[in-house]
């Protein structure tokens, strides 16, 4: 199994979610995140005093999938989240040793 994590622009969340649903993914975890990549943050001005805000708001989407689905899920997410402009985010995959559904105790692929 794999954990696919995507950091995307907040306004792309709905599109990514819909794309994943139509691919057949039944669940995901979403959290607010902040950070910066090459574009750094933004600046704000209060009465002429400038403040640099390093961290830009982002959304983190996590999906657990079977090994064979991982590549396609990454493609689906990238396609849905892409604007072509700087700050679009990243998607990565890491191996997962085991998964347990808390309610039933099912393990592995059946728990997804």
């Amino acid at each position, binding site marked *: 199994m794999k954990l696919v994590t995507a950091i995307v622009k907040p306004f792309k969340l709905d599109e990514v979610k819909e794309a994943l649903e139509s691919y057949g993914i039944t669940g995901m975890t979403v959290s607010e995140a902040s950070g910066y990549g090459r574009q750094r943050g933004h600046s*704000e*001005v*209060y*009465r*002429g*005093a*400038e*403040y640099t805000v390093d961290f830009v708001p982002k959304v983190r989407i996590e999906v657990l999938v079977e090994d064979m689905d991982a590549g396609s899920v990454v493609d689906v997410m990238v396609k849905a989240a892409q604007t072509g402009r700087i700050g679009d985010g990243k998607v990565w995959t890491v191996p997962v040793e085991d998964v347990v559904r808390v309610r039933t105790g099912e393990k592995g692929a059946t728990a997804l």
Partner: protein
Amino acid sequence: MSLHSLATADVPFIDSGNTAWTIAAAALVLFMTPGLAFFYGGMVRTKSVLNMMMMSFISMGTVGTVWVLWGYSEAFGPDLGHGLLGNPFSEFGLHHVMTAIYGYVPAAGGSAATGGIPGMAFVAFQVVFAIIAVALVSGAIADRAKFTTWTVFTVIWATVVYFPAAHWVFAFNGYAAKAGGWIANGGLFLHGHGAYDFAGGTAIHINAGAAGLALALVIGKRVGFGKDPMRPHNLTLVMIGAGMLWFGWFGFNAGSALSAGTLAAGVWVNTLGATCTAMLGWLLVEKFRDGHFTSLGAASGVVAGLVAITPACATVTPIGALIVGLAAGAICALAVGLKFKLGFDDSLDVVGVHLVGGLVGTLLIGLLASKSSPNGSGTRDGLFYGGGFLQLGVQAAAAFTVLIFSFVVTYIIGYALHKTMGFRISQEEEIAGIDQAEHAETGYDFGNLFSGSRIGHHPSHEQDARHHDETQEKVEA
């Protein structure tokens, strides 16, 4: 002049319209202090919003109290000499004022035919000025002043700095007492030429601004000033506060007519006009300098305009008011950067907005005063209306006397308190947040994991323990 007005000129009578307006205006002005609490509260960080608001609120508590005791008497009681101070003991506790009727204010454009107001209406109207003048100072020492010391400071500062200044500027001859203040009536080195300050540009704004600067210098910069971001934590609060200030300010300025008529109406319109152009002036400076029209800039421009038009609202024409506002908005927007250049931490720009704004308004009277103003034909024209440099000189003398007096005396009071009671909380408390340290409260409960557990009723701990023992004994028996 009709027989009727001749008769009323001699016998003081209460005019219900004037009285109604003055009392209503007093309530409007009182509303400005909570407005200021919001305005200032929004500009500090989350961890010090309550302390910031409390510094305004406690000013109502202390100044309102001392006003009844000796403040009113010090500002408006019989003059002790040369228009410098009223006798603090003659009207102590307001015991002579209840039945008094105050007539018109000649220097503010009233006429003898205008009916008077009850002495208590005047007492009510003037106390709210004293309260907000004191509260304004707190903006310079945000996040770091010991609350007890600030509370003591409000009483001392009002007594030693504000009430005398109010006497100078607001005590007209023959109004509340026979002889009044030297700035209002042209005493001392003004040689009979009174300065125009309709609603308190000198006594309130220059005074509070200079005091703010002095205190900021005495107690020093916030920890991390110039390095850490100290962004306003809630600009919506700032906007609410600015709105409340603007609303209340119509009572401040138009109420200073102490009558409901042409003067008050003209002043009302001038107050509006200047505030509007000041907002535009501030925003234009921001757009050119920083690239954006900010909400904090709009709110600050509003306050700068209100400050500047306060002294000038009766003695300039509506066009003059637009000019005063525009100048104040632009100049104050440029002036708020001073603290970074000069290295003092006037946290919420009391100097940049109130001192500079007050100076702009007070000095522009010397240029723009006109007989076509709400104050009417008795006005001495300013430089631009052919009046020469006389009025400008008088205005400058009044403004800078108040500035220097306030700065020096406040510095001494602040320094004395700093060396005795201590004017600053510890660095550790400041970093953790003054709300927690000084008030055992936090402004916002975000309901997180760390929001606390278990409610203790500490005054009754002992009782609980005893009660517990008794029940134990009963059970054992």
